């Protein structure tokens, strides 16, 4: 039985201007000890996915359908109270901006103690000792002294470490990190990514990392899921996505990123236009207005929604072009330009 299984998850928000389809039929699975990278630009629905797995949209205005199986339990139909008891214990989350994600008026120690004592009936003293251990585990110097300081007294990197300590305090089996290093400097980002890799190994937790930075995804993920317009448009192992991508949007992402490990190309290969609004998602394939190869689909691109089809060994793509056409275009037109 897979540890985490999503089946056709849909999360729609009715608003004054219409129905926002943030997640529009998402399915994937994840085993413990493995890392899934979810990549997508702003407004692709990646953050809503993570929050709905945690059940934070339950009972709100959102309309949720489909299934979320966690360790054999279905969460969408489960009671709010039950899902709440799992949050923090079985599954935990790390957020992007650690300064605003921690309460300004309570010490870091108090917030970790609180997280721990929700699920473990222990005295404050025991909880504090555990908090100090956790802070030490995540690499904060003099944890016994820093446990009583406030979030604003920590540097960016230290605060994120404290967030991780809090998330891991109850030894969760699933850890979701939403843009964990976007707000950090590059040297500190590197330290945090190393830390997360080590901790995942020690805690044998399933890790979902959500980011727009292909570099971060490449560093950590075993499998990668590319989201666009609330849907998964390509899913595969890290090598599938970086070595033999088969979706025009993935090509576009790789093309528009300057890379240190490659020679400086004359010009970047941007994708024209801008990401779609989730209220009126373009008809047919959501990416068709920006896809250079749409004419080759003979009009299907703008009318029919392509299915997520397996091309080879777990590598799925949602595109009207045939596998051969895609491989040919990648080999002849895209790959050479990237390497020049």
């Amino acid at each position, binding site marked *: 039985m897979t540890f985490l299984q999503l089946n056709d998850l849909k999360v729609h928000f009715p608003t004054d201007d219409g129905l926002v389809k943030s997640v529009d039929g998402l399915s994937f699975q994840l085993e413990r000890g493995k890392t899934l990278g979810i990549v997508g630009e702003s407004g692709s629905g990646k953050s809503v996915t993570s929050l709905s797995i945690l059940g*934070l949209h339950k009972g709100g205005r959102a309309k949720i359908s489909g299934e979320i199986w966690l360790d054999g339990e279905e969460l969408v139909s489960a009671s709010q109270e039950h899902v709440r008891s799992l*949050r923090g214990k079985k599954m935990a989350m790390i957020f992007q901006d650690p300064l*605003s*994600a921690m309460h300004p008026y309570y010490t870091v120690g108090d917030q970790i103690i*609180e*997280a721990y004592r929700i699920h473990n009936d222990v005295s404050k003293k025991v909880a504090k000792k555990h908090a100090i251990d956790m802070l030490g585990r995540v690499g904060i110097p003099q944890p016994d002294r820093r446990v009583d300081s406030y979030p*604003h007294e920590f540097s960016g990197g230290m605060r994120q470490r404290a967030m991780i300590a809090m998330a891991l305090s109850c030894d969760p089996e699933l850890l979701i990190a939403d843009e964990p290093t976007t707000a950090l400097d590059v040297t500190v980002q590197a330290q945090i990514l190393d830390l997360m890799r080590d901790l995942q190994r020690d805690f044998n937790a399933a890790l979902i990392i959500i980011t727009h930075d292909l570099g971060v995804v490449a560093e950590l993920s075993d499998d990668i899921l590319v989201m666009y317009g609330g849907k998964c448009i390509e899913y595969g192992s890290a090598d599938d996505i970086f070595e033999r991508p088969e979706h025009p949007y993935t090509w576009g992402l790789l093309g528009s990123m300057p890379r240190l490990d490659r020679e400086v190309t004359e010009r970047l290969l941007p994708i024209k236009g801008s990401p779609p609004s989730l209220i009126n998602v373009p008809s047919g394939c959501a990416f068709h207005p920006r896809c250079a190869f749409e004419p080759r689909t003979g009009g299907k691109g703008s009318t029919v929604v392509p299915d997520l089809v397996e091309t080879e060994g777990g590598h799925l793509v949602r595109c009207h072009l045939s596998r051969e056409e895609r491989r040919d275009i990648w080999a002849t037109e895209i790959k050479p330009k990237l390497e020049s």
Partner: protein
Amino acid sequence: MVTYIIRRLIGALAMLFIVSAVTFSIFFVVPRLAGVTPDDIANRYVGRAATAETVQAVAQKLGLHDPVVVQYGRWVKGVFVGSEYDYGTGVEQCPAPCLGYSFVTKQPVWPDLVDRLPVTLSLAAGASVIWLVIGVSVGVLSALKRRSVFDRGAMIIALAGVSLPPFFTGLVALSLLSYGLGITAPGGAYTPLTENPGMWAYNLILPWLTLAFLNAAAYARLTRAGMLDTMGEDYIRTARAKGLKESKVIGKHGLRAALTPIVTIFGLDVGILVGGAILTENAFSLQGLGKYATTAIAANDLPKIMGFTMLAAFFIVVANLIVDLLYAVVDPRVRLS
């Protein structure tokens, strides 16, 4: 921290001096500019059939002929050193802080203020606790149930609360509840707390509710806005992600952050209120500082006016200082450099 307090205390003292100088000139210098002679002023305090000599003698006794600066100097000396008062068969020592003697009742002003302070303090204490509790809880509930019937209803009542002056609500309440149904005490009833706490509360429950009704409305709207802000913050989402019960998320995390501005305004409001709830005290005939103020002003009784103005100013300045110090306690990010 200590230097901060010292600097603020010096500022406070300077402020009190300025207030005293300005008030003194309003009542002494301005009339003089409008051509009012010392005898005219003295005339206010003599009987109907007083002869010219009596008026001059009274003006002399009250020292109204001296230059204004001398009179102000004498008043300030009185505050710090005290002064003496000739009451006919003898001379009485008036210990510092001596705010002089009322022109009308000839009573020393400072003891009067001290006698009346407990009334205003009781009124202020009771009312402030009630409006804080009601205001905050209504504010929180309407924030959480945004756009619900409760939210709309509460805000309409809040609007009424803010717009109806206490003397109107007070008198209507008195005639309906006290005299109509007889369930609450009549106007003017006051029993000191030390004497009989039960009666003290019974007599003051109506004034408390009237005063609280006015301010609770403002606090409800303030808390509602604060809560709506705080509940949208990231750390609320983190708290929920930790698996906290919603009630704890609201109470421990949401409210704690939303309360900071309310603590500031509450401190200032109480500071002002302790200077005398003029409208409520008059409506309920409570012999507090507010009532003392209105009688003093109606009779143009200058020492009394100077007295209660200075006391009110003192309370406001102290409240300001306390609120600032409290801020550093409430919000750890604030350091009093």
